């Protein structure tokens, strides 16, 4: 379905459901549908951060609860009109999420289960504070006296319509976010956060934004729910039920699809209601357990898992255009200018980096001149990869400076370095595994130096896929590529960022001789288009064919620099590679 079609059908379904109160059905139906919408909001909002980015939160109950108690306090104690409390409830939940995120997202280690636990702990801390302060104080808050505006024929239709409107808004947001820059970035974070950052995705800001958005929606749902239940207690509000249920619903439905959690929420709510309402309450609960187990065992991607690929393909369909000739990567120096006198594009001065006492880089000083290919050599463990990691911003240097096009970039976040025009590849390819080859490259074009809009990025991606001869594999997942193709995918991603400087980390290692030849031709092509290249390489034949100059590192220090043939004859270089001569 086209994006437009999705929005239109969402509007139509919502409008149709909005007419339900006019049918005059028993209140029971409205309450049941209210619960369905309620869980759709909670599960879908949870999915915006946790499903898209893979940061599984067990703290959704905390933000839901913050909303519950904001509305309860404002409406019951300060007599704020109910509807006015809802935006406040959302805002408080979002601010709380921002406070947690500002601390937690800064610590690189806190991912996966650590993030889950931390958010769970936040729930308990918040619950205890509310329990022990006048916000609740222990006995719970009664809201039966709060006046409720009447939309439609009865009070229960007020809740029905409010929840319906919020569910519509949440689904729309989830859909838009998923297609937007934010969503693309979150999917990249899901697969490989470090690489996403190096491709120019502002991971920290994106995680914060998604967290705040997700929690604001949960907070509003909490505000509505407070009056729906009309008596709130800490025990009920902050129980493990909310976080556990939203996780279950989302995974059951499928976390990578915007509508997955809503499907899961509908199924589970219906199951719970069907089985726990009647005489078979106990057996019904067991049935829910069995259904859950069976679905996960036989459909580990969730109910919506299968449609994932089709949906991504449908989002495209513009690509029939014949890709034009590869354009210059960037308007750098003319390729045939005398390189020795070309100005320095990258200046590295006295760079130091140590890991727990091991000095990986020691006062490294070198220049990369515009338009040149600089070969970076050295034995294993000499600091080549560390140097690339520091220049691309993955590691912060301990001391020293890195100036790129006249601007100091040492220590600034990796995504800003990427946007300023530096791209890199990984020695062991690190594609985003759940994105197609085309989406991998499109993402780089959207976030890299060029920061293109999505359609422009898709055209750019098509161009580089053709350039690297991956166009036949464009709609495959990276797992379907062989090593040679994955290395080229790394190249295509780097080039789609339109960098001035490309750092190639052992692109040729592991390739067979004919693959090396084609890769060398490709790199020559790239340089002919004006990009400056730093080439970390062990394949000496390729280095000598490609490099204008060579810098040799050993034990983190520069031991030689200059023209390839001369450098390779230097005694220090020979010693570093082969050991000292016996007679020395």
């Amino acid at each position: 379905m086209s994006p437009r079609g999705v929005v239109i059908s969402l509007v139509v379904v919502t409008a149709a459901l909005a007419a339900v109160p006019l049918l005059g059905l028993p209140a029971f139906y409205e309450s049941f549908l209210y619960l369905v919408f309620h869980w759709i909001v909670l599960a879908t909002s949870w999915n915006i951060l946790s499903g898209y980015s893979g940061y599984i939160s067990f703290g959704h109950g905390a933000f839901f609860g913050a909303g519950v108690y904001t509305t309860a306090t404002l409406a019951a104690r300060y007599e704020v009109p109910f509807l006015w409390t809802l935006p406040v409830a959302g805002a408080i939940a979002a601010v709380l999420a921002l406070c947690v995120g500002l601390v937690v997202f800064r610590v690189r280690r806190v991912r996966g289960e650590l993030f889950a636990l931390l958010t769970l702990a936040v729930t308990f801390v918040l619950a205890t504070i509310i329990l022990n302060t006048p916000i609740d104080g222990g006995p719970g808050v009664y809201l039966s006296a709060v006046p409720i505006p009447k939309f439609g024929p009865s009070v229960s239709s007020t809740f029905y319509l409010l929840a319906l409107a919020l569910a519509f808004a949440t689904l729309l947001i989830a859909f838009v976010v998923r297609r937007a820059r934010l969503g693309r970035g979150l999917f990249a974070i899901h697969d490989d956060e470090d690489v996403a950052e190096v491709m120019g995705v502002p991971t920290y800001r994106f995680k914060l934004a998604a967290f705040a958005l997700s929690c604001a929606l949960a907070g509003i749902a909490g505000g509505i729910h407070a009056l729906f239940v009309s008596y709130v207690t800490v025990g009920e509000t902050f129980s493990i039920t909310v976080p556990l249920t939203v996780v279950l619903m989302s995974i059951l439905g499928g976390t990578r699809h915007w509508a997955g959690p809503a499907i899961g929420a509908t199924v589970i709510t219906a199951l719970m209601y069907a089985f726990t309402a009647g005489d078979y309450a106990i057996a019904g609960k067991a049935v829910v357990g069995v259904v859950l187990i069976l679905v996960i065992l036989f459909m580990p991607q969730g109910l919506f898992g299968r449609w994932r690929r089709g949906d991504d393909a449908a989002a495209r369909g513009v690509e029939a255009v014949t890709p034009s000739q590869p354009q210059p990567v960037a308007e750098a120096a003319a390729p045939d200018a005398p390189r020795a006198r070309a100005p320095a594009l990258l200046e590295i001065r006295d760079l130091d980096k140590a890991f727990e006492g091991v000095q990986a880089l020691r006062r490294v000083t070198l220049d990369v001149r515009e338009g040149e290919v600089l070969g970076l050599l050295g034995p294993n463990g000499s600091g080549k990869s560390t140097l690339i990691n520091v220049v691309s911003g993955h590691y912060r240097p301990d001391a020293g400076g890195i100036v790129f096009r006249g601007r100091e970039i040492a220590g600034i976040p990796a995504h800003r370095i990427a946007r300023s025009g530096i791209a890199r590849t990984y020695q062991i390819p690190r594609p985003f595994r759940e994105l197609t080859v085309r989406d991998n490259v499109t993402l780089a074009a959207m976030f890299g130096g060029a920061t293109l809009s999505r359609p422009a990025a898709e055209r750019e991606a098509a161009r580089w896929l053709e350039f690297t001869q991956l166009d036949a594999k464009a709609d495959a997942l990276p797992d379907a590529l062989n090593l040679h193709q994955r290395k080229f995918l790394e190249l295509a991603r780097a080039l789609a960022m339109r960098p001035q400087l490309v750092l190639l980390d052992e692109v040729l290692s592991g390739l067979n001789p004919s693959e090396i030849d084609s890769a060398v031709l490709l790199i020559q092509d790239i340089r002919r288009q004006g990009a400056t290249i730093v080439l970390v390489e062990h394949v000496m034949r390729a280095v000598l064919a490609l490099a204008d100059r060579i810098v040799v590192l050993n034990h983190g220090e520069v031991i030689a620099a200059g023209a390839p043939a001369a450098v390779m004859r230097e005694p220090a270089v020979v010693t570093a590679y082969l050991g000292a001569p016996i007679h020395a």
Partner: protein
Amino acid sequence: MNLPGPTLLGQAVLSGIFIGALYGLLGLGLSLTWGLLGQINLAHFALAFLGAYLTYHLATVGGLDPLVTFVLIAPGFFALGVAMQWLFARFRVSPLNSLLVTFGFTVIIETVIQAIWTADFRRLDSGYGDVKFRVGTLFVPLPELLTFCIAIALSLGAWALLRYTDIGRSMRAAAEDPPIAAAFGVDERRLAYLVSGGAAAVAGAAGLCLALSQTLAPSQIYAWIGVIFAVVMMGGPGRALGPLAAGIVIGVSEAVTMAVTAPSWAPVVSFSLLILLLIARPGKA
């Protein structure tokens, strides 16, 4: 806030140690399957309560000594653990999905408990409940002391097994890098059955301790999840002594908070401690 006297404080620390030992014992099995098999087993809590109810039943209906019931319960639980591992291996369940599948089991076990023993609170009246020792000015209740000893024995046992035996070393190797361990002749599948079965048997032991010192109700299964998860992560998944140490740290900090302020403030201290640890702890966590 008023500072309690030394006796009260001592009693608080002691009860903190005891409840911490129970935390550690409940966390031990969870930690082992998490760290060694990559499974987050929510059903561990339900298993422990099933064990507790079985102890209760065998002791009240069958008239057995609660400690003797464990001899009957442990092999059955080991088999349950093996069966569960078979299912996980057969369907290659991912860590996140293991959470969901075991939640399904939790619900099923809860239903079984509720169907057999109803949702009412139950308390085991064994000979142990009323016995208390007096050490100096402090009271030491026997059920808690037993829990403490069982927790220490099992944690130390698991630690020694992992550290000093070939089987334990193979387990750690298989957890670190399954393909390489397999290349060195480690039979990963059999070890996984052993870990899973062992963890389930430990859940049975935790159930025995729950039955001795706590009041039982099916809904209580969920009451322990938060704090035990905290204990496991703080101790480091897969490390046998971790849960006990972390459990005692959290237990004592809770008990002292209760003695110094109001009891309801206790979770703030333990979970704030956890949050700080998670954020500040350098290196592996």
